[in-house]
């Protein structure tokens, strides 16, 4: 009996521990889906009508690490997109050139550490054959390179300036048609020092709930504060908007929503599994309890013959179940600590936090198992007629 309670408790407690930690871990893993917020220049009024281009400031990027949710900013990369002419031998073409950081360590203001930024932090799936571009080289999208018959190591002209092709990029998206340069190089080529046309951010977020979908403009002061200080993708976007001058930050909804759904389903799954394991343990407790009560029917008959009512007999057996529950709970907790460690290492390659807080959780679930598991058998055993068991010789 102790064993079944212990197993049930171990499973339930492990699952609860996992569910507490798993969300964080999984949402971090899900960040491999890439950026979930884009920041672009705010376009309004005459500028819009005139089609005049607007830019963000490169020096604002590091400010993303100063917002309230700065620790949730896991990746960031600037992009400067411009038109240019590429020529290779006798072939010429109008293309989009993109200046960006592929990987760049940014010194954090007021701290000794640096923060890794760049394309690899927001679009980890980008696949470059060759090297990332430096001051005198570019990376070509794979479709473009094929169209113009260009190989790695050959030289191309961009707006008349020579660059070596250091690598070929394939992403399966529009990038395959584009030319990638270091951000500084692109800015110089286009005479747009310090300018950026788009910034992508990868942020850890809290799944959107009903409250999160409320329009911040209609919120009361209190609500707004709560919204602002919760890590919704929208509130993080809002905070980014505040630090990027003249910007508009928007969640990339399909990414944000998919993530939210995955996390939501994950927790439902964990809860279901927890409930199932508690139930299974209670069932197994109940069979063992029933078997043990069967062996002790004469004890029950005896108790009845000396005047015990069902209530007092139940109390005796329930308190036994209680002790079993406590012991099983402790053992189960100990097991779950091991299981959680093991799963943490196997699945996430990291030790999940141990939570002493879960000891009460373990005890409560164990007692629940013990109580649920013994109520029915006790009730059944109580129906025994004392005369029957007492007459049979032992």
């Amino acid at each position: 009996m102790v064993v079944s309670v212990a197993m049930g408790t171990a499973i339930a407690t492990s699952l609860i521990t996992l569910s507490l930690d798993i969300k964080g871990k999984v949402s971090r893993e899900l960040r491999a889906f890439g950026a979930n917020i884009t920041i672009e220049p705010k376009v309004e009024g005459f500028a819009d009508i005139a089609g005049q281009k607007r830019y963000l400031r490169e020096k604002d990027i590091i400010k993303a690490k100063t917002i309230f949710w700065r620790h949730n900013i896991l990746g960031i990369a600037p992009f400067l997109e411009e038109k240019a002419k590429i020529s290779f031998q006798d072939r010429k073409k109008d293309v989009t050139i993109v200046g960006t950081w592929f990987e760049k360590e940014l010194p954090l203001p007021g701290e000794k550490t640096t923060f890794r930024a760049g394309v690899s932090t927001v679009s980890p799936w980008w696949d470059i054959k060759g090297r990332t571009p430096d001051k005198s080289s570019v990376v070509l999208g794979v479709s473009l390179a094929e169209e113009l018959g260009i190989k790695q190591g050959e030289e191309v002209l961009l707006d008349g300036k020579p660059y070596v092709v250091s690598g070929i990029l394939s992403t399966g998206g529009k990038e395959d048609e584009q030319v990638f340069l270091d951000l500084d190089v692109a800015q110089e080529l286009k005479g747009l020092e310090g300018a950026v046309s788009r910034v992508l951010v990868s942020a850890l977020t809290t799944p959107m709930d009903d409250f999160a979908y409320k329009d911040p403009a209609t919120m009361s002061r209190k609500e707004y504060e709560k919204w602002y200080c919760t890590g919704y993708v929208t509130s993080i976007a809002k905070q980014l908007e505040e630090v990027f001058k003249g910007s508009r930050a928007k969640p990339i909804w399909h990414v944000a929503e998919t993530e939210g759904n995955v996390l939501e389903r994950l927790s439902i799954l964990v809860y279901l599994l927890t409930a199932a394991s508690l139930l299974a343990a209670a069932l197994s407790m109940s069979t063992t309890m029933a078997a043990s009560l069967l062996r002790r029917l004469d004890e029950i008959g005896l108790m009845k013959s000396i005047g015990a009512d069902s209530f007092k007999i139940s109390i005796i057996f329930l308190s036994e179940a209680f002790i079993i529950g406590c012991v099983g709970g402790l053992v189960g907790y100990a097991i779950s600590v091991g299981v959680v460690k093991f799963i943490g290492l196997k699945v996430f390659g990291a030790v999940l936090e141990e939570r002493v807080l879960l000891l009460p959780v373990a005890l409560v679930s164990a007692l629940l198992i013990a109580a649920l598991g013994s109520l029915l058998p006790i009730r059944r055993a109580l129906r025994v007629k004392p005369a029957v068991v007492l007459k049979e010789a032992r």
Partner: protein
Amino acid sequence: MEFISVKDVVKEYETAVALRGVDMDVEKGRWVSIVGPSGSGKSTLLNIIGGLDSPTKGSVFIDGVDLGSLSEDAMARFRRENIGFVFQQSHLVPYLTSVENVMLAQYFHSITDEAEAVEALNRVGLGHRLHHRPSQLSGGEQQRVCIARALINSPKILLADEPTGNLDRENTRLILELLKKLHSEEHFTIILVTHDPFVSKWAERLLTMEDGRIIKDEPLYC
């Protein structure tokens, strides 16, 4: 109506008929023996009088209360107020000591009182066996624990089913003398089932059963 009144009680089991219409009255404070061959229905009758079993037909009144009208829990309450049992097998809880077995009956009755339990064991001559488990006691000693337990809540009736069935002559005499002493002090009613003539003659009245009926009812003068 007499103190104990059994009216036309029939008890049928699926495979056998144990009682075929039993009528009997017992006055308060009497010591009655029931004898008869094995299988004649003695135990069944005793269990029905004690409310451990219910009759197929007929009724049992104790002190004016119709046992058939009591719910199971009400029956348990009635039993612990009024009836003490002693069986052939000693039926003690094996993992409890003598004094704890007696206290169990106190617990079911109301509250436990260790001093009182010790006193009860002293009276049956087991003051030196208070903290022994049943397996560490002789058969006679176990039966004396059962008697102490049966009498701890001062019942009006003591029902004993072959209480000396497993004992030698010497222990049997000890138990009977003990019962006689307690009976003369406390005047509870005794119904004692036995097939041993040596045991049955300690009673004031002798009922003989055969095949589910009472066939003889005679007074005894000792």
